[in-house]
């Protein structure tokens, strides 16, 4: 350790204290926001920032990669411990999530689609495993590591690894604070698809020849109308075969353009506000005290030893 290393550390910790102080206020603001917004029902939902308490339901079945749990949402990390002298740190070697997979929310009064992209997750860890003395990787973890080409064996056996996974299971009760927004409705989607197919048709000379019913080398208005009708009929048949369009997909819950707050949690509102209260208190008071102690140390250091 060089002579001024402690000064650098004191400055860093002092800076961290100041950051914590302001971070604490951010948590306080969040806590108050959660408390100030009443819970809405899906049936009575209006566009804008809404708070919902509902059960998660799958749109498609997902399996969490580490434990193979059936879920509607997952997130995982694989970390390796890297020693640096007497200390060390966890470095993420692999991570993944299902932020791009929507799922349903159902509160008994209705159902709405949730797009988890951009959400702040407030979920406790559902699965955690660390390798170490007497702890070897289970077969499903070994399979996962091999499938993803992640090295986990060193010269002296398995690396020190930490596996963590968060997931939301079907029918699990959830707290959601997000924005209810309009999305493309069925008619818009249908129109877009139809236009796309007609564009494709125009680009394809072989198919355009089929449109020319009287084979005079020119496509009349009637022939074109007939072709449009045929393409649309095929599209409708496909859409009907793929499932009935759902009214509920017209409005979705996601991250808003104006209201950036978007929280997903499997804890109750009470638990969340309690947690945020603690974080706010620790951040504000802890941060201020830490900054003051470090400032005191720096002043003492300067006074006694100089720079």
């Amino acid at each position: 350790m060089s002579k001024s290393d402690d000064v650098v550390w004191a400055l860093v910790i002092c800076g961290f204290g100041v950051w914590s102080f302001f971070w604490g206020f951010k948590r306080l603001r969040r806590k108050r926001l959660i408390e100030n917004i009443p819970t809405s029902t899906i049936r009575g939902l209006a566009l804008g920032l809404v708070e919902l308490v509902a059960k998660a339901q799958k749109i498609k079945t997902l399996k969490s990669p580490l434990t193979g749990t059936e879920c509607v949402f997952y997130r995982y990390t694989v970390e390796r411990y890297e020693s640096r002298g007497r200390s060390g740190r966890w470095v993420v070697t692999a991570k993944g999530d299902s932020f791009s997979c929507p799922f349903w929310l159902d509160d008994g009064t209705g159902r709405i689609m949730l797009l988890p992209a951009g959400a702040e997750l407030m979920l406790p860890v559902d699965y955690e495993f660390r390798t170490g003395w007497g702890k070897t990787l289970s077969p499903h973890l070994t399979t996962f590591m091999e499938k993803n080409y992640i090295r986990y064996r060193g010269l002296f056996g398995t690396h020190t690894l930490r596996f963590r996974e968060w997931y939301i299971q079907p029918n699990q009760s959830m707290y959601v604070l997000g924005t209810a927004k309009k999305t493309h409705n069925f008619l818009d989607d249908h129109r877009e698809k139809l236009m796309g197919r007609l564009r494709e048709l125009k680009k394809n000379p072989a198919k355009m020849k089929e449109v020319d019913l009287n084979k005079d080398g020119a496509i009349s208005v009637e022939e074109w109308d007939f072709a449009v009708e045929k393409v649309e009929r095929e599209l409708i048949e496909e859409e009907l075969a793929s499932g009935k369009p759902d009214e509920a997909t017209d409005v979705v819950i996601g991250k808003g353009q104006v209201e950036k707050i978007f929280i997903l949690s499997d804890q109750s509102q009470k638990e969340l506000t309690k947690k945020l209260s603690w974080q706010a208190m620790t951040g504000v008071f802890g941060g201020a005290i830490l900054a003051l102690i470090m400032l005191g140390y720096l002043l003492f250091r300067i006074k006694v030893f100089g720079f």
Partner: protein
Amino acid sequence: MVGIIALVAFLFLVIGVLFYFVSIYNGLIRISRNIDKSWANIDVLLKQRHDEIPKLVKVCEGYMQYERDTLEKITAARTACLGAKSVGESAKAEGELSKMLKTLFAVAENYPDLKANQNFMQLQQRISYLENQIADRRELYNDSVNIYNIRIHQIPDMFVAQMLQMKSRELFKITEEERGDVDIKFDLPK
């Protein structure tokens, strides 16, 4: 050295108090705006319900020639709703209209032809769904008002609320008429 630390501690205190009061102020403003928004959102549904009522009356007129009184009362209740100005007035008028609609649907049970009418069935379903949506939004509005009313009487929010001269807001209460049983009378000729 102690002086500098005390000064910085004082600075933290001032910033802390300032931030705290700003967060209270912003919070109160947000709740207040949420109440206005919740009320406007109820209004949207009420408007939709009011738009459905003339259609319903028209469908019923053909079948319920002996229930002219009920139909006229519904039309009058709808007009009263459109003229309501305050939350209280609106709650009373809407309560009366809801009660009249319930009566109409109950009386309609006595007219099998009307009950089998596709338009009537659709309108009944639509109005019933709107009624449920209105009830949900009314609950949300009352929750917002309740949070607001509690906040402005709690310390330390009370000080900010007093500075801003914030007053308690009115709840959308269920009227006595709405709470009572539906009064069904068939005006069939004797």
